[in-house]
């Protein structure tokens, strides 16, 4: 039995949810009706909804090509994040000389914005011969410090006695990570997948700089290109936004339970 009534909390949560969902609803409504968002009085329900704005988007720009590019780049980023961050996260749970310095270095690097490192990142990618390639597009996002700490928090929750038992049984460090830690850290894996996917999927600045041919552009660049082509495309523009957002929302909805577990696993560690 609760000491205080719960309805004020639920009311506040409902109000917050409403405030957060209304913009999404408005984008969805405009994408199927094309109504001007500045129209007054605004209509809550779409008038004569149809899907032709989605058809327009599909044909005005090479949407399928941009979608494929975004999928490939995001897949590379997600795979690299899971593998590299798991290894880094496990290393940070072990004791070694200079561990404190490494942790401080990681934390301080989080404060450096990507825009500040974009020129060296471009030069390195160029030297590697990866400009205008899928690997080059994914390279700066192949490991993120936040996700390393998500793995670190998750691995630290595993009892040391379990790791010691694995060592006694002859399992190598590599085996401990992939055969013991990762199966126990599904929530951290899901968090890594979702965060790295969304960051890669929505990235605009790096693909803008590193791509040279139109065939290598990703969806955010396609949106900018679409805006430059069309001037009066309220409905089509919003349809494009929905088509770009949909995969990220779908992935989040599929893995939201593990995602929330992954983000809170460090917070509730005993």
């Amino acid at each position: 039995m609760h000491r205080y009534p719960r309805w004020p909390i639920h009311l506040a949560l409902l109000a917050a949810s409403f405030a957060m969902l209304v913009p999404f609803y408005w984008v969805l409504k405009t994408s199927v009706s094309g109504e001007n968002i500045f129209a007054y009085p605004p209509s809550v329900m779409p008038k004569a909804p149809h899907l032709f704005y989605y058809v327009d988007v599909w044909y005005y720009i090479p949407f399928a090509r941009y979608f494929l590019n975004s999928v490939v780049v995001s897949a590379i980023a997600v795979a690299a994040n899971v593998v590299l961050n798991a290894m880094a996260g496990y290393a940070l749970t072990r004791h070694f000389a200079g561990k404190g310095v490494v942790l401080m270095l990681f934390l301080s690097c989080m404060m450096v914005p990507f825009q500040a490192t974009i020129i060296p990142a471009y030069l390195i990618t160029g030297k590697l011969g990866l400009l205008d390639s899928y690997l080059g597009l994914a390279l700066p996002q192949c490991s993120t410090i936040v996700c390393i700490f998500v793995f670190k928090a998750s691995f630290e929750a595993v009892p040391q006695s379990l790791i010691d038992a694995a060592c006694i049984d002859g399992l190598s460090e590599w085996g401990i990570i992939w055969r013991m830690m990762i199966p126990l850290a599904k929530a951290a894996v899901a968090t890594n997948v979702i965060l790295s996917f969304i960051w890669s999927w929505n990235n605009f600045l790096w693909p803008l700089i590193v791509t040279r041919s139109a065939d290598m552009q990703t969806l955010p660049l396609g949106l900018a290109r679409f805006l430059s082509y069309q001037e009066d495309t309220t409905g089509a523009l919003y349809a494009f936004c929905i088509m770009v957002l949909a995969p990220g929302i779908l992935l989040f909805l599929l893995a939201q339970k593990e995602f929330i577990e992954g983000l809170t696993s460090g917070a509730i560690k005993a």
Partner: protein
Amino acid sequence: MSGSEVSRPLWHRLLVNRFTIVLASIALVVAIWNAYIALHDHGVVEGRVVDAAGQPVEGATVVLWVLDFTTFVEKTRAITDVDGRFVIHGNDSHNIQIEAEKIGVGRARRVPVRLYFKAEDVRLPSPLVLAGSG
């Protein structure tokens, strides 16, 4: 991992989970949609032309306009038969307009027709009505 999950064989766990089911469902819908497109993308536009009294008009010229980036351009023409029917082949657009005219009978306003994919076969739901002096 729950006990029931462990008891299931690996292939079952890989196939029967929400990720696989959702992605497979999307793939199935895409495959069905593409099959439908493949069967209905001959670029045929059919319809009828009638006069103000609702009588079929023979020999009316029907013009197909297609969207060319931002403006509509004339693509092709057809002539109606004795029943006022016309069939236009070679539409390769998803956003078209149809116009009809016969000198001495009148002209039908351009009718916008939106299609769900390029070259979709379409039959106009209502006839084009020639009105005015022509």
